[in-house]
């Protein structure tokens, strides 16, 4: 199709589809409504029965923990897929990584100083996800981005050193498999898969909420290592290897 035809098709489609979508949204209960029965029930159960102050964590790691299992493996599969796709093919030659041009000293210092702080914050956010804002997803993302501050500071070689990819690789598997193992704890204790059978502890203390925190840590490991692997692979691609097979494919 030519560009004109494609654009024409798009306009026609968007008019119809957009009209349907907007009409449906106007027919939906307006934003800000008072009644949220499912949400309120989830909050009540989270706080009163499961000793989990952060309702989001209770939903993600307890009430609807199965979704999170699926999400975790979705992430696992994406990371695996991206690595397979970006992996150098036999035609590629590895080029020794050269550091990007010297960054400002201040930038570098800031990056190096911030690194431990951010990593610490990441661990904290993962570990206290059942209590306050945070959890495995957020903490994992913070960890991964934190470590890549080193890259922004221009010290790619240092980044390569502090980022032992094989270890992260193992973590990726541990996070994914750990979630299943914690889920099986419920079965081992005579309950259902992913049932929160551990002692629930005292409300609003670190060791409470049963398996919520364990699952959150598993997700934290998975998200953190998955994102590190992803960014690592993209960095290696952009800076490290260079395709020499390119000329043969071009122009076909």
């Amino acid at each position: 199709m030519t560009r004109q035809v494609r654009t024409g098709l798009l306009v026609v489609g968007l008019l119809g589809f957009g009209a349907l979508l907007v009409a449906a949204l106007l027919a939906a209960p307006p934003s800000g409504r008072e009644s949220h029965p499912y949400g309120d029930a989830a909050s009540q159960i989270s706080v009163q029965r499961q000793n989990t102050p952060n309702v989001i964590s209770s939903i993600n790691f307890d009430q609807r923990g199965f979704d999170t299992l699926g999400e975790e493996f979705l992430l696992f599969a994406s990371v695996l897929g991206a690595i397979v796709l970006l992996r150098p093919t036999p035609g590629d030659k590895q080029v020794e990584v050269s550091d990007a041009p010297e960054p400002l000293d201040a930038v570098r210092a800031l990056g190096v100083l911030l690194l431990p702080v951010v990593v610490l914050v990441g661990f904290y956010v993962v570990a206290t996800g059942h209590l306050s804002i945070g959890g495995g997803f957020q903490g994992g993302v913070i960890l991964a981005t934190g470590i890549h501050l080193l890259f922004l500071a221009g010290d790619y070689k240092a980044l390569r050193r502090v980022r032992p990819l094989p270890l992260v690789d193992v973590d990726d598997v541990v996070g994914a498999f750990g979630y299943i193992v914690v889920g099986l704890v419920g079965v081992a204790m005579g309950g259902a898969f992913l049932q929160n059978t551990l002692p629930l502890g005292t409300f609003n203390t670190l060791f409470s909420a049963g398996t919520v925190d364990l699952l959150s840590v598993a997700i934290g490991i998975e998200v953190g290592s998955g994102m590190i692997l992803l960014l690592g692979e993209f960095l290696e691609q952009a800076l490290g290897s260079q395709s020499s097979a390119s000329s043969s494919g071009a122009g076909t």
Partner: protein
Amino acid sequence: MTILPYLVAAFLLLAGLAGAVISRDLIRTIVALSVAQSGTYVLLLGIGWRRGGSAPVFADVDPGTRTVDPIVQALCLTDVVVGATVLSLLLALAVKVHQSSGSRDPDALTELGG
């Protein structure tokens, strides 16, 4: 106000899709898809919003406090992370396409026709 989140969501969704269609660069297509995805986040949170509700975290507040709907937030949270990894996979594919064909322009990639 009560429909503004919906309209913004619909706008992001439709504009993102349109951007993906007319894009002449595979990476722009993927960026446009991520804008469309952000529309679904706004829609979810808009649906779960409660006027005057606080965040559904009861660490420092009374258990009886009115909060916004936590369910949509849980859905949205997981989706933000997973959406990003799916985009990364698409980006990896775009890199690969470019590596072998030398172009990011979908108009120039005609090997798979007919």
